[in-house]
């Protein structure tokens, strides 16, 4: 397996992009990543596209050739592959693109993630994303995705003394970070009081504990690391790309306060790269719900089980902390276009490693981690990214 580098990145703004179609945002992200990389379209070998639910959100399947077509590349007749893994679709697409280049089968691939969520009403979108949980044994009994994460939150509070205020500190930091991100869905700052007094969604989680439904797309260009400098001034090496799975339904897990898929993916990733959590200066982690971020910090190995709430509320993971978490604003505030999330996390981290993140730059970052989850944790993906010197 050869080393793989990220040669270019691009993304759209995240939010309610009512004036843009799925195909428009998809090609905007892909072409901006290609332009960023200085790679000629002639040299491209394949597209890997992460997308959760175009079939139900848009009644449009077969979207990978569609985007190739509207990118002006249909005449190249390239392989174009759509990948679905719930909210982790984009991260799994990156894993597949990485494998394709690492194996030597392809030299240059675009990995994209795109989701158009506001072409259906909220009720329909929520039903569709409920399909990332178990329709037959969870959803049919009244379980919603926030409801299932709320079950994890309640048990975490019961077992470890995690408080409502500690949970609320997660979205407060997310909005603070996103206020400096021009691509973010929400750039307004919020207070702890606002989070605590927001309308309930699934107790103990309220409106501000839950990431929004967003439109958006993101893309990266991958190539062999030994040829990277021809296409970019500051290449970023994929030091590890690991994914793991678990039972689809929460009820079948051995623990609901730990995502074993994340634990396993993180262990594999750190072992592969010969690194540990203390080596990571900046991370983009899955914070679809406030509890998701706390579980992630524990399961990735940044905190021992049960301690993430207190650590997060103390500001350990803000700018200037040992590891800065979600400088983009995360899923909560940068936005949550499901299939695009895993790729957008990597776009943010590459810009951080290049030192181009301006107001939200993490000083001197050389090693970054991205973590994305599908459903309630049936899929988890961890990438480690390292600036090449």
């Amino acid at each position, binding site marked *: 397996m050869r080393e793989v580098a990220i040669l270019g990145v691009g993304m759209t703004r995240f939010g309610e992009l009512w004036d843009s179609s799925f195909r428009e945002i998809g090609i905007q992200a892909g072409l901006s990543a290609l332009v960023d990389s200085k790679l000629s379209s002639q040299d491209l070998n394949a597209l890997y596209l992460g997308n959760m639910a175009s079939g139900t959100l848009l009644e449009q399947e077969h979207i990978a050739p569609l985007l190739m077509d509207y990118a002006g590349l249909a005449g190249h007749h390239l392989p174009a592959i759509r990948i679905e893994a719930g909210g982790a679709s984009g991260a799994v697409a990156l894993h597949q693109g990485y494998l394709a280049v690492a194996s030597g089968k392809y030299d240059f691939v675009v990995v994209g993630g795109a989701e158009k969520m506001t072409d259906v009403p909220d009720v329909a979108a929520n039903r569709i994303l409920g399909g990332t949980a178990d329709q037959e044994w969870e959803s*049919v*009994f009244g*379980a919603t995705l926030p409801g299932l994460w709320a*079950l994890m939150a*309640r048990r975490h509070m019961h077992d470890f003394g995690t408080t409502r205020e500690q949970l609320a500190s997660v979205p407060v930091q997310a909005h603070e970070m996103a206020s400096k991100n021009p691509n973010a869905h929400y750039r307004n700052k919020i207070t702890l009081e606002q989070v605590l007094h927001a309308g*309930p969604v699934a*107790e103990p989680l309220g409106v501000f504990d839950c990431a929004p439904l967003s439109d958006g797309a993101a893309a990266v260009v991958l190539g062999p690391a030994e040829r990277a400098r021809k296409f970019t001034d500051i290449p970023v090496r994929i030091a590890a790309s690991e994914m793991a799975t678990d039972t689809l*339904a929460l009820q079948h897990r051995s623990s609901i306060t730990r995502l074993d898929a994340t634990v396993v993916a993180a262990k594999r990733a750190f072992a592969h790269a010969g690194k540990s959590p203390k080596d990571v200066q900046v991370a983009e982690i899955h914070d679809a719900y406030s509890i998701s971020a706390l579980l992630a910090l524990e399961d990735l190995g940044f905190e021992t089980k049960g301690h993430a709430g207190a650590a997060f509320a103390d500001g350990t993971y803000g700018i200037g902390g040992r590891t800065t978490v979600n400088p983009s604003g995360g899923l909560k505030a940068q936005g949550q276009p499901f299939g695009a999330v895993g790729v957008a996390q990597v776009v943010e981290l590459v810009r951080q490693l290049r030192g181009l993140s301006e107001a939200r730059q993490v000083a001197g970052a050389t090693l970054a981690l991205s973590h994305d989850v599908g459903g309630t944790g049936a899929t988890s993906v961890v990438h480690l990214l390292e600036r090449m010197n």
Partner: protein
Amino acid sequence: MTTVARYWRETPRRYNLGGCRCPTCRTVFFPPRSVCPACVTHRRSFGKMEPFQLSGDGEVFSYSIVHDAAEGFEMQVPYVLALVKTPEGPTLTGQVVDVAPDQIRIGLRVHATFRKLREEGRAGVIHYGYKFAPVSEPLAGTGTAESASPAQAPGERGRVRA
């Protein structure tokens, strides 16, 4: 809208809590599975899992009070969603009914009860299945609020509709 068959085929499980048990390691599963994931020789269990009836007993392992309902549950908000751990082993996801939201707690003893879950509009399939209701615990004679069954003294205000 889905066909009747999709719901009809699950009725033994959703109406009667019919699970299964591995003949080798005796682990119980709900819903039933074709192969035992607990068993080191799991492939040998394929096609040999035995039917096993859950008792319907359980206790609340975790819960949430849902305000933003799943589709078809809008008329029931707020409702209590819970993970219920059964003495036979499996954990089930379902609503807890006949309990005021402020009386739900981790550890609450419940028993499965057959209820209407939701309907797909006026002309669609009506889904039935299990929910859970608190078990009346025998009064210990101490007269503490803890020992009274929530089912016997629910406040009308905020009462969860079944």
